[in-house]
């Protein structure tokens, strides 16, 4: 059976989204077709808008539409406490716990099985941030898997050389787990119980 070309095009685009199979793509396309014109337009505009206006904050790496981002300009936050996270989604999870320091998001892939080396990690901006930022404690909030552990040890040694205290999330995080998918209470406890590296 041949579908109308614009419908087929929509389905093909939706299929590119993660964890969307042919059936889901078809269902989503049908949902979109049934939307009132205005809502469908809003959906399309939102995609273009987000793509155009959202970028990683040059200071912390969090996604923002203003420079510096809302977290970086928030005056109530503790300037002496810096949390290093792997990805923006980890920051979103940590923010829900009420963490009140600043962030540094690595936004870099590190997978030893894919052939990454520790030297692939660009630490220059992190080093500058630590030297210039009046930071007294760095909390490493990397995923508790093997790559995260290797990366944590590497960053800890670099930060310690700058004379800054390094802590890490307390255990209780499931090993092999993912910060993004950890519930708030567990994550909150992990931040509160952070230990010196």
């Amino acid at each position: 059976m041949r579908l109308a070309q614009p419908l087929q095009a929509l389905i093909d685009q939706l299929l590119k989204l993660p964890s969307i199979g042919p059936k889901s793509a078809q269902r989503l396309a049908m949902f979109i077709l049934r939307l009132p014109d205005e809502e469908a337009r809003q959906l399309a505009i939102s995609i273009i808008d987000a793509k155009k206006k959202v970028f990683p904050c040059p200071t912390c790496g969090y996604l923002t539409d203003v420079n510096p981002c809302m977290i970086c300009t928030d005056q109530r936050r503790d300037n002496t406490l810096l949390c290093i996270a792997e990805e923006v989604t980890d920051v979103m999870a940590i923010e829900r716990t009420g963490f009140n320091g600043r962030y540094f998001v690595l936004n870099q892939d590190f997978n030893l099985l894919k052939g990454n080396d520790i030297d692939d990690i660009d630490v220059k901006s992190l080093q500058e941030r630590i030297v210039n930022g009046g930071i007294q404690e760095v909390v490493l909030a990397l995923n508790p898997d093997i790559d995260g552990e290797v990366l944590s040890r590497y960053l800890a040694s670099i930060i310690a050389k700058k004379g800054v205290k390094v802590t890490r999330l307390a255990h209780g995080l499931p090993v092999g787990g993912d910060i993004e998918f950890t519930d708030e209470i567990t994550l909150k406890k992990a931040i509160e119980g952070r230990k010196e590296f």
Partner: protein
Amino acid sequence: MKLKKINISNFRNISQLEYTAAPGLNVLMGDNAQGKTNILEAIYVLANGSSFRTNNDRLMVQYEKKCFHLKGTHQTENRVISTEVEYCLTNGKQIKINSKKTNQNNQNRLRVVVFTPDDLYLVKGSPSRRRNYIDYILKEVSNEYRLLVDNYYKILRKRNEVLKKNPINDRTYNLLNELFIEYSAKIITARINFINLLDSLVAKNFGQMNQEGAIKIKYALSFPVQDGKVNYKNLSDNLIKYVEENKENEVRRKSTLVGPHLDDINIYLNNKPARLFASQGQQRNIAVSLKISEVHAFKELSDYYPVFLLDEVLAEFDDQRKSRLIEQISSSEYQSFLTSVVNDMISSFGSKISLVRNGEVEGNN
């Protein structure tokens, strides 16, 4: 821990079966290919979520059926726990304990130790067989050990990947090697402590089963340890040294050449290596002793007995050994399930005997 009841449907050649278990020895008797082992397998899958016979869950679904379903209740010291395992060709596996969705590592699940005819090669077979033997029980009694081993194998794969690079990145290597040493030393320490416990149990057990011969088991490291002391500190110090000295070799071979994944367990009969000097019959006796000792070690480490599953263990034994073995397991505190082709030896031990024919159990109530 005792299994009270299991319901099996659409599993291998079993369409529908309910088995109410006796607290002691349960004998499943019948000709070959009637479904005796399938019942043991179903109990094992109920406990572990996967089989000891295949890694392919699809094979356990009955011919032309879509899903198999297992449901059982077991009694711990103070609770009755129900477990359900369902596997469907289309949407995979689901495990429920006390009606709540869970995974195969749930603390409340049924615990079993299985003896398969393959285990008769425990003495003579490859080292991985013996490593799996001790790892199975250590993982069963300690989730921490399970994580250690799972993570160790992840580290190992990454370490081998790092060793494949030319030239290797020393900073990455050093960081990963640090982890490799830590995990290795932790695993080996746990294994050696366990072997010490097991050694005394096997010696006792083997003595009960066999008139002659003394048995000894020792952990065999894949690297030398200088002053013989085996504790975490000394193990990691010696491993660091060995890895340093052999780095060039590992880089050339692009592979990790030392570590708990290459260790072995040496078994001695009358102070001689059993895999070389014990007769086939003696090796089988040792294997059975090792397995029974595993059940007792489980009890020592976790304060309760697992359920013991014995598949076709009698086939290779002479009458005297058969009756000694049956006497021992039927008079034990633990619950056991044993498959057998023949009746003659067993009927006198006051156990529950059921006849399995064509995927059904006769004389079951």
